[in-house]
């Protein structure tokens, strides 16, 4: 196959949309940001709000690394625009727990060595919290299935399963008693 490619349509390119004030409630705090409307929630968190705990692995909703909680539900933050989340309660990994004050899932991930490089980990943990909020997963098979939107290329799935199971089990024991 050979030949000369033609230039793309000579039509006018649209001027980029201007930035406007957007207020996002992240981890219980209001962030007043200047965002163009085409800014994804993921990029708003990482590049504008300085919260780089939320990771970008594909930007297409395929890997789950950017998982955050919006009003308690887990979503891929790369698949929503920041402006659409005004007024919502956004929780990122930074909001779940901090060094010295770890969330039970964070501690369980450390104990079970549920990560290696750590890049998918914030998304895994937010996803696990979302899973617990959904109240669906109880058996190992259910956890495996419902944690399958989060890819871990290091292959730490056994640790992830055991970490999530430990917290789910403790939760159900607490609920029963």
């Amino acid at each position: 196959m050979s030949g000369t490619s033609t230039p793309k349509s000579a039509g006018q390119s649209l001027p980029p949309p201007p930035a406007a004030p957007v207020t996002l409630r992240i981890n219980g705090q209001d962030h007043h940001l200047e965002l163009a409307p085409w800014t994804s929630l993921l990029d708003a968190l990482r590049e504008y709000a300085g919260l780089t705990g939320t990771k970008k692995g594909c930007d297409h909703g395929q890997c789950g690394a950017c998982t955050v909680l919006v009003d308690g539900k887990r979503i891929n933050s790369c698949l929503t625009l920041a402006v659409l989340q005004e007024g919502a309660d956004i929780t990122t990994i930074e909001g779940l727990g901090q060094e010295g004050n770890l969330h039970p899932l964070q501690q369980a991930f450390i104990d079970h060595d549920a990560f290696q490089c750590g890049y998918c980990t914030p998304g895994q943990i937010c996803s696990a919290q979302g899973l617990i909020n959904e109240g669906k997963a109880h058996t190992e098979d259910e956890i495996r299935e419902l944690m399958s939107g989060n890819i871990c290329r290091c292959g730490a799935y056994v640790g992830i399963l055991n970490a999530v199971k430990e917290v789910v089990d403790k939760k159900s024991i607490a609920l029963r008693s």
Partner: protein
Amino acid sequence: MSSTTNHVGKAPSRVEGPAKVTGAAKYSAEFNVPDLVYGYVVSSPIAKGKILKIHADKVLAIPGVLQVFSHENVPGLAWFDKSYKDDVAPGGSPFRPLHDDEVKFSMQPVALVVADTFELARYAASILDIEYKESTHETDIEAKRDDGHEPGKGKTGYKPPVRRGNANKGLAKAEQHIKQEYIHGAQHHNPMELFGATVHYHPNGKLTIYDKTQGVYNCQQYVTKVFGLSKEQARVVNLYMGGGFGAGLRPQYELFLSVLAALELKRSVRLSLTRQQMFSFGHRPHTLQTVEMGTGPDGALLGLKHSALHETSRFEEYTENVVNWSGMLYKCPDVHLNYQVAALDVYTPLDMRAPGAATGSFALEVAMDEMAYAAGLDPLEFRRRNYAEEDQNENKPFSSKKLREAYDEGARRFGWDKRPMAPRATKEGNMLVGWGVAGGVWDASMQKAAAKATITADGKLTVSSAAGENGTGTYTIMTQIAAETLGLPMEAVTFKLGDTTLPEAPVQGGSWTAASVGSAVKSTCEALGEKLLKLAQKLGDSPLKGAKFEDVEFVNGQIRLRQDHDQAVVLRDVLQTSGEREIEADSSAMPNPLTMQKYSMHSHNVVFVEVKVDEELGTVHVSRVLNVVAAGRILNQKTARSQVLGSIVWGISMALMEETVMDHRFGRYMNHNYAEYHVPVNADIRDIEVVFVEEEDPHVNPLGVKGIGEVGLLGVAAAITNAVYHATGKRVRQLPIYLDKLL
């Protein structure tokens, strides 16, 4: 009192765990330095041809777009190839981004758009018009079957295959004989973190370059040579790497482009590649292999031939050791190994976890299973009968080899003796059940590395070496080694890495970090220990007076006599009375050429697998994997196990899922995203387990470690393939085993 500061061999959690689980760990594209501008790469849609014109005007007219870099405006840079050669470059001429109008491979970076925001840079890149003149490309290795050649010198670590005896004569004596072809397609590393860099442009013109790399020194060397900078002008930092698997061994084009933009614009620049672009800079090559072997009446291998052919680029000659392992894993008098490459219009392949061995062991170990069946022997028994007591490639004894113990331990735990020999013998409901076995061998390497250690009056120790942390556990094992050497609790020790202001370490690859950097850390802490002993002996009536360094040990925060533990001083007292604010030592470690000459140093493994195959759907479920590894001393049971668990996941992926598919009409990988490039998710992984057999090795290096990042991958894909045969009676010789191969 027994020791509370023996950390090596235990299972402490990762010291960087809290940083990773809270999002506090900073990866390269996350250093939010002030006044950042953003780059976005434009990739070539054609595989071969010329760039006729870059119509940058329309894009440059958009407010906020700062520059479009391309071959049309890149300033004169280093001229000779050697300036672009990194530490692990293969032979040939390294690719130079934005160098000229030539397109050499699909998705080649052809322009970099820089703008005030990421969104704007992405938009501008999407509308940038570029005219190309396409020419005919060749991307299919199948068309090059008769066109391969034996590579020249190859890259570091490449060993041309050694032949011995006369394989044809050996095969002619054989009673049983097999000859088959084995194929796998291209695979891409696909670490979770996108390749990216943040270049901090300081007011004095110096750069701090946060780059995704497995070797900060390798990148510094590249940048200084290409851009004519001094080392002081280009500090390279990588504190955390979101997975590498070999993808970050060589400096990638985000480094070149972001440094170029920072220097030209005199601004701080961030550049992240897209997931699609992650398929544009190196891969495990599509490889065609043939294995032929024959056995005598007792099942002894009499002759073995193994040949391999894979692609390289037009501009570099990539090599990996694919066939050599077949000359050393089993005993065989007559062996013929042949390795060839053929140039195509693709980017140069790139070392990917267990490069060469993952490929070669797949072919060898499936062939061994076929041979065992042809000879009427249990596949594990067949391997035992051909056990290599020495490395026949090099005619040397192994420094240690506990593979037989691994066979025994694995067979016992897996229940291998209950395996029926015949295929299709076990059914559970509508699932055919099969068991398979396979294994591998990998180099136990060591490189030169340096380290520095500083202890302060409060008893806190800081040790540093510019190694990498890509999930392997470097922070943790180095902390363990340092703390144990000086008898401190792990909490008293901080290990620093990934920064060219620290002592030099080799690239993080080849499974050699534990041996290389670990030995340097140990030797440095010992050097510091000698200084501390001297200070301790200066104390008034020191119980250690006259003691030599060999006579004392550092345990529980004390220095004490080995022969009389009551003769001890508290380390912190020594530091405080010495009046010194801090005491420092540096040292390095390198491989011992004498032991290297004398011994063959390798790790081994054996993998047992159970699969369940739905015959109507052709789906394969890996229900059980046991990976038994003999890799010397294990420094941290927890992180080592995780590395091998990860290797098992990789092996399942290689066997059943992973393949980058090229559309040869376009010379382009078509499934270049995470939705279509399949890797396992949590639901794909069932009962997988790891066992380390005890293997003491006094020769391999001062720590007795062999490295475990790669050996665990070997044998997994072959064991799954063999288990599929045992389950179904169908022999698959091309990976991945998609369901069409079983229907």
